C-alpha cells in the first residue's frame, strides 16, 4: 500500500508525456488529459493522507529498487494534498484562461512536470532526490513564467526568479554534501536517526556541523521564500500567466517553510540559527507588509503581500512553531491562490464600476476625508490590553497548563496583539454609528484569529510531530535567552503604547503635522515606493558585472 507514494508523482509525469505525445492528434483537447491526470493525483494524495491518519507508519519506499527514495509520512502526504489540490484548481482554471495563448499544449506539459517535481520534492526520502527536485522547480518555473516567448520583459523577470532560486540551490547543495560526508548516508530517515544519536562530533572550519548545515538550509529556504534581500524577484514575476502566479504563490514560494520542517532534526541540534531565522522572518514580514501598502497594482500588491506572509511563516519557524508554519503555508496557499485567480475578474469589474459603496469607510480609506467623530481612545487602548490577556488565559485553560512558559506561544501572541492593535487603531480612526457592533466585531475577529492559530498549531503539532519529546526539543532550540526575550516583548509593548500616545497627541492637536514630520513622511514614502532602491542596486551590480566581463573579453582578445 505504501507504493502509493510512488504513484503520486508518477501520474503527472505520465500525464505530461501523454500530453506531449498526443498533442498533435488531439489538439487543444489534450489539456483534458492533463486535468484528469491531476485529478487522479489529487485523489491518490488524499488516499495517502488518509492512510497516514489511520495509523500507517512512516516508510521509505524505493523506486523499483533504485537509489531514488520517497517518504510516506505526515509531512509529505499533507503537502502532497495541498500541492495536488492547488494544481488541480490551476489546471481547470487554465483550460479556458490559456485557450487563446500560443503554446497551449506546452503550458500543460510544463504544469504537469512542475506538479510532479513539487510532489517529488515534498516526498524526497534521500538527499540526492531532494536536491534534484529542489533544483528542477526553479528551472521549470523559469519556463512557466516565460510561457509567452514573445514577451521579453516576462523572460527578464523569469530570469530574476531563476537566478535567485539558483542562489538558494547552492547552499542546500553544500549542506547536503556536508551531511553526506559526515554521516556517510543520503537516506533522510537514517541520517536523522544518526544525527539524533550523534549530533555534536563533526565540525566544519571550526564551527559545529549542525550550525553550518542549519544555516545553509535556512539560506536555501530564504531564497525560495523571498526573504528580505532575496525578495526582489517575487513582485516582478507577475508578468507570467495568472495561473502560474497562483501556483507559484500557492505552492512554490512557500517551500522554504517545508524545507525547514523537513530538516527539523538538524535545527533541533543547532544553537543560534533559529534566532537568525526569526529575525530575518520578522524583518521580511514588516518590510513586505509596508511595501504592499504602497502598491497601486493589484498583482504587485499581492506579490508583496506574499512576501510579508512568507516572512511570517519563516518567523514562525524561528520561534520553533514549525508545524504552525506548515498550517500557515497551507492557509496562505489557498487564500492567495484564490486571490490571484480572482484578480482578473476584479480588475475587469472595477473598470466598469468599482462597486464600493460611498459610505464612511470609503470616504475615510479612499478619499482620505477627515472624520467628524471618534470612539473614546481610552476604551480602545484598554481593549488592546485586555484581549491578549484573556486569550492567554483561555489558551492556558484549553491548550496547556504551562502555556505561560512557552516563549514561542507568547511571541506569536504578541504578534497577534500587534495585528489586533493595528485593527483597533484603524477602527478608532473610523467614524461609526454603531459603536457596540464595531467593537464586538473587532474583538471577535481578533480572538478568532489568535485562538484559531493557537488551537490549530496544537493540532498540527500532534499530527506532524507526534513525539512529545521532539516537540519540546524544537521549542527548546528556538528559546531565546531570557534577557533578549524580555527585551523583545518589552519593545513590542512599547511600540503599541507609543502608537496610542501618538494617536492621543494627534487627537489633541487636531491632526496637524509639522513641516519636519511631513517631510520625513514624504521621504519615507519615496523610499518605500522605490522599494528601498534594492532593485536598482541589483540591476546596477549585474550591469557592472556584465560590463566587466565584456572588458575582460576585450583585454584577452576573446580567447
Amino acid at each position, binding site marked *: 500500500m505504501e507504493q502509493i507514494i510512488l504513484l503520486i508523482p508518477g501520474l503527472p509525469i505520465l500525464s505530461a508525456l501523454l500530453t506531449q505525445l498526443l498533442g498533435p492528434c488531439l489538439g487543444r483537447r489534450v489539456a483534458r488529459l492533463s486535468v484528469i491526470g491531476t485529478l487522479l493525483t489529487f485523489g491518490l494524495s488524499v488516499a495517502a493522507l488518509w492512510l497516514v491518519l489511520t495509523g500507517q507508519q512512516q516508510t521509505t519506499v524505493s523506486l523499483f529498487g533504485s*537509489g*531514488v527514495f520517497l517518504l510516506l509520512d505526515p509531512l509529505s502526504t499533507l503537502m502532497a494534498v495541498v500541492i495536488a489540490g492547488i494544481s488541480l484548481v490551476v489546471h481547470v482554471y487554465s483550460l479556458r484562461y490559456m485557450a487563446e495563448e500560443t503554446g497551449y499544449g506546452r503550458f500543460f506539459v510544463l504544469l504537469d512536470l512542475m506538479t510532479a517535481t513539487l510532489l517529488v520534492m515534498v516526498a524526497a526520502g534521500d538527499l540526492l532526490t531532494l536536491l*534534484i527536485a529542489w533544483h528542477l522547480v526553479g528551472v521549470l518555473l523559469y519556463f512557466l513564467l516565460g510561457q509567452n516567448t514573445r514577451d521579453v520583459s516576462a523572460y527578464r523577470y523569469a530570469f530574476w526568479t531563476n537566478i535567485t532560486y539558483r542562489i538558494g540551490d*547552492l547552499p542546500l547543495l553544500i549542506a547536503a*554534501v556536508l551531511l553526506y560526508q559526515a554521516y556517510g548516508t543520503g537516506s533522510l530517515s537514517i541520517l536523522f536517526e544518526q544525527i539524533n544519536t550523534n549530533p555534536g562530533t563533526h565540525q566544519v572550519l571550526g564551527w559545529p556541523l549542525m550550525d553550518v548545515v542549519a544555516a545553509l538550509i535556512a539560506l536555501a529556504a530564504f531564497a525560495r521564500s523571498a526573504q528580505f534581500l532575496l525578495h526582489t524577484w517575487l513582485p516582478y514575476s507577475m508578468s507570467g500567466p495568472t495561473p502560474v502566479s497562483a501556483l507559484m504563490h500557492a505552492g512554490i514560494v512557500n517551500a522554504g517553510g517545508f524545507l525547514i520542517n523537513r530538516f527539523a532534526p538538524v535545527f533541533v541540534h543547532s544553537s543560534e540559527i533559529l534566532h537568525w531565522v526569526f529575525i530575518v522572518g520578522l524583518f521580511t514580514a514588516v518590510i513586505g507588509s509596508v511595501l504592499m501598502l504602497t502598491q497601486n497594482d493589484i498583482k504587485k500588491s499581492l506579490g508583496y503581500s506574499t512576501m510579508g506572509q512568507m516572512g511570517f511563516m519563516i518567523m514562525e519557524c524561528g520561534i520553533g512553531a514549525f508545524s504552525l508554519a506548515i498550517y500557515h503555508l497551507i492557509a496562505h496557499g489557498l487564500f492567495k491562490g484564490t486571490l490571484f485567480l480572482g484578480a482578473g475578474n476584479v480588475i475587469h469589474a472595477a473598470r466598469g464600476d468599482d462597486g464600493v459603496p460611498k459610505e464612511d469607510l470609503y470616504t475615510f480609506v479612499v478619499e482620505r476625508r477627515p472624520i467628524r467623530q471618534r470612539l473614546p481612545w481610552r476604551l480602545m487602548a484598554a481593549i488592546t490590553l485586555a484581549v491578549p490577556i484573556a486569550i492567554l488565559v483561555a489558551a492556558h485553560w484549553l491548550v496547556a497548563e504551562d502555556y505561560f512558559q512557552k516563549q514561542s506561544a507568547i511571541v506569536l501572541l504578541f504578534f497577534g496583539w500587534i495585528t489586533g492593535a493595528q485593527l483597533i487603531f484603524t477602527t478608532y480612526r473610523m467614524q461609526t454609528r454603531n459603536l457596540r457592533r464595531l467593537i464586538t466585531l473587532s474583538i471577535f475577529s481578533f480572538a478568532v484569529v489568535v485562538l484559531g492559530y493557537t488551537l490549530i498549531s496544537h493540532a498540527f503539532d500532534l499530527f506532524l510531530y507526534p513525539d512529545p519529546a521532539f516537540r519540546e526539543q524544537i521549542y527548546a532550540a528556538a528559546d531565546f535567552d531570557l534577557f533578549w526575550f524580555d527585551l523583545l516583548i518589552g519593545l513590542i509593548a512599547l511600540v503599541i503604547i507609543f502608537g496610542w500616545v501618538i494617536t492621543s497627541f494627534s487627537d489633541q492637536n487636531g491632526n496637524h503635522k509639522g513641516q519636519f514630520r511631513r517631510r520625513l513622511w514624504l521621504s519615507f514614502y519615496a523610499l518605500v515606493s522605490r522599494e528601498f532602491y534594492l532593485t536598482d542596486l541589483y540591476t546596477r551590480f549585474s550591469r557592472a558585472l556584465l560590463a566587466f566581463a565584456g572588458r575582460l573579453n576585450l583585454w584577452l582578445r576573446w*580567447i
Partner: protein
Amino acid sequence: MQIPAYLLIGLFLPLFPLSMGFNFVLGRSRYALLRILLLLIWPQIGLTLLQTLDSPVPDWVVPLALFTAALYALRALALRDVGQWSGFLATSAWALLWIAIQGDVTILQLHLFALGFSAPLVLLALLGAGLERRFGAAYTGLYGGLTESIPRFSAILVLVVLAIIATPLFPTFFIMLATVMQAVTLMPLVAVVVAFVWLLWSWAGARLLQGLIVGPTNAEGIFDLNRLATGAYALGLILLVAGGLYGIGGLL
C-alpha cells in the same frame, strides 16, 4: 621537470593563461566536425598525459584551476557568439576536473567526467552550425524569437543548453555534484567557489537562451529541423539523461 609537464597538461586540462590556446584553436576551426573533435578529444589528451606522471598534483594547480573556471564562466556572460560560448563553457568545466583529480576518483571516471562535460557541448556545436547555415551567424540578439520561427530547433537548443549548465538528470549535474563532494574534502571554501562557478553557468545559459529564443520573430521562412534530425537530437539527449542517471549518477 614537474612544472613543464604540468604546464603541458594545463594546455589540455585548461589552466589560465594556457587555456587561451584551446579557445584560439576552436575559434579558428571553421568546420563543425573539427570543432566536435576538438571538444571531444582535447580534455582526454590532458587526462592521458596526466596518467604518465607519477607525482602528486602541485598545490598551486587547484587555486589556478578554480580561477580559470571562474574567469571563463564570468567571461561567458558577455558572449554572444554560440561557438565562443561553448568554448568558454568547455574551458570552465574542464578546469574543474583538476578538483576531481585531487580526490579518490579513478582515471576511468575522470575520462567519463570529461566526456560528460563534452557531449552536450558537441550537440551545441552541431546546433551552432545549424544556426550559421540558416542565418549566416550563430549570434544571440541578432534574430531572436526562434521559438516561433523554428520551434523544434528551439526546444532542442533549450534542452542542450540545460544539459551544459548542469541541470539535474543530465550527466553534468552529477559530475558537478561529485566535484563539490571532492571540493568539500579538500576544503569547504573550494566547494563554495565551485558552486559559484555553477551559478555563473546558469546565468550565462539563461542569457544565451534569452538572446536566441525570446522575443517576436523576424526570421520568417526559415526551415525547422526535420523529424529525423529532431529524433536524432532527442535520442542524444535521452542517452545523456540515461548516462547521467545510470552511469555517473548511479541512481538507477
